């Protein structure tokens, strides 16, 4: 199974690279969809059907919205020439990326292999969760009962994001 997941992840990396370098913005969007749908297969292989359902639905909707936007505006990517300000920004971005990579490699050294988790709280969540929450689906029991605060924060984040989208996209101000 590790080999299968490695092949799919390699496929996803290829799709992401193609999405950056494609000339046509429409094929770039399709390559983004490739990344999302490969992630669905990864979730199914790792035995997470809840996440797979959410990922496949959200990815389809996002793809539809992005295709509609690309077809409505332009399919050509606009290029800019780098000036001195641009070079400073690029050097800063590369520096930040290297720093992030270093701290990431330091922080994952104490973690387990993907899919073989032995988190401390997980045992207590799984043991007798059906009797404690009364829910046959364990994920819903954890998300809405044990981790209720997280779910409420998630909902509030979504509301805030929509308010931000409405603020940015409005062209004419209200009088």
């Amino acid at each position, binding site marked *: 199974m590790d080999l299968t997941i490695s092949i799919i992840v390699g496929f996803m990396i290829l799709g992401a690279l193609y999405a950056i370098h494609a000339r046509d913005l429409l094929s770039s969007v399709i390559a983004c969809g490739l990344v999302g749908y490969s992630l669905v297969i990864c979730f199914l292989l790792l035995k997470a059907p809840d996440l797979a359902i959410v990922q496949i*639905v959200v990815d389809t909707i996002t793809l539809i*919205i992005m295709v509609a936007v690309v077809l409505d505006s332009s399919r050509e990517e606009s290029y800019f020439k780098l000036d001195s300000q641009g070079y400073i920004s690029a050097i800063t971005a590369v520096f930040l990326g290297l720093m992030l990579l270093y701290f990431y490699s330091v922080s994952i050294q104490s973690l387990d292999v993907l899919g073989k988790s032995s988190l401390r709280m997980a045992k207590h969540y799984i043991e007798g969760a*059906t009797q404690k929450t*009364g*829910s046959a689906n364990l994920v819903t029991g954890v998300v809405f009962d044990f981790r209720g605060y997280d779910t409420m924060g998630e909902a509030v984040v979504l509301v805030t994001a*929509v308010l931000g*989208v409405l603020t940015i996209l409005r*062209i004419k101000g209200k009088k």
Partner: protein
Amino acid sequence: MKGMTIIVKKTTQLIAGMIFMYGIYVIVHGHLTPGGGFAGGVVIAGSFILVTLSNGGDFMKLLKEESGTTIVESLATILVIVIAVSGFLFGTKIFFNNFLPKGIVGHLVSAGVLPLYNIFVGTEVAASIFIIFLSLIIFKEESKG
């Protein structure tokens, strides 16, 4: 934004209702089968997006009154918090307390307040996703005219 041909419109009339009902099914059975509020809410938003895309932007007569979905979304979030606070009022004094009777595991009406959370989160997600899509259409039309 214009609509599409009559073939697409008729197919949408056949399919959109079924997609909507499937979203409701996923939300209501969220505590029994995989799925839940988030996935079902996005499916419901998808049915609305399908209708809007095939019939054109002015089909729903929403061009000037886009505040409806925002109100639904805010109300759903407030209701989640109200249910969470009502855990204080009934039984033990714990935030997010599951105060309703649990019922039998595997039945449709069971698991206390979890189905209610699922329904409200589904409403909120459907409203948010749909309003993001609508705002893309509405502000484009406004900038033209």
